[in-house]
């Protein structure tokens, strides 16, 4: 069972989520923590119509693998899935998913939090918010 790292244009729907879980779960995993980043309807006080995510795909997957390797070392688990969507995303859709399974819950929480925090800081992905009256590339 290898970690899953992926930049994808496909929707992260329930079927995709179930496949991620099946792929990383194993009989020694007692705690599974999942972060799902969802497109919100408001940002910076404006109503968001949709988002466009863009990645530097080769480098993004490379940086994601760096994060996964760090998690494997610090929290002793390979049961990690890290997937980021690109393209046009509607309000309510999943933009990013980080799932980590560990023997115990404390490590799973820490590893998942480290995963999403580091992804935001180092993985080359950009987000454009499209409002009723304009659009903007936004940080964070």
């Amino acid at each position, binding site marked *: 069972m290898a970690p899953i790292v992926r930049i994808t244009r496909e929707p992260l729907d329930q079927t995709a989520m179930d496949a991620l879980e099946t792929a990383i779960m194993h009989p020694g995993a007692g705690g599974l923590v999942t972060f799902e980043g969802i497109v919100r309807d408001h940002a910076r006080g404006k109503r968001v119509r949709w988002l466009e995510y863009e990645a530097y795909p080769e*480098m993004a997957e490379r940086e994601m693998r760096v994060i996964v390797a760090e998690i494997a070392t610090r929290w002793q688990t390979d049961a990690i899935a890290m997937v980021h969507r690109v393209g046009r995303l509607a309000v309510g859709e999943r933009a990013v998913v980080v799932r980590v399974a560990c023997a115990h819950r404390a490590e799973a929480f820490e590893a998942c939090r480290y995963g999403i925090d580091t992804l935001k800081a*180092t993985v080359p*992905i950009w987000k454009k918010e499209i409002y009723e009256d304009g659009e903007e590339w*936004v*940080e964070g």
Partner: protein
Amino acid sequence: MRVTVRYFAALRELAGRPSEALDMPVGATAGAVRMALASRHPAMAGPLSACAVAVNQAYSDLERTLEDGDELAFLPPLGGG
């Protein structure tokens, strides 16, 4: 020597293309490429100064000495997650 610059997000929109090739003197640094781009595309000068530098799909810095065929990217502030 020839290097490729890839553009993303706001820089891609300013450049009007996803990448371009530049001829640079042997031994040029990433910083020299940045200066060349700023003079070729004046609207990019401001945004470029806020960018991180990647060489061959890994983080690098402006002092990095380039080689023929290298792929550069200047990364605007990230928005993933």
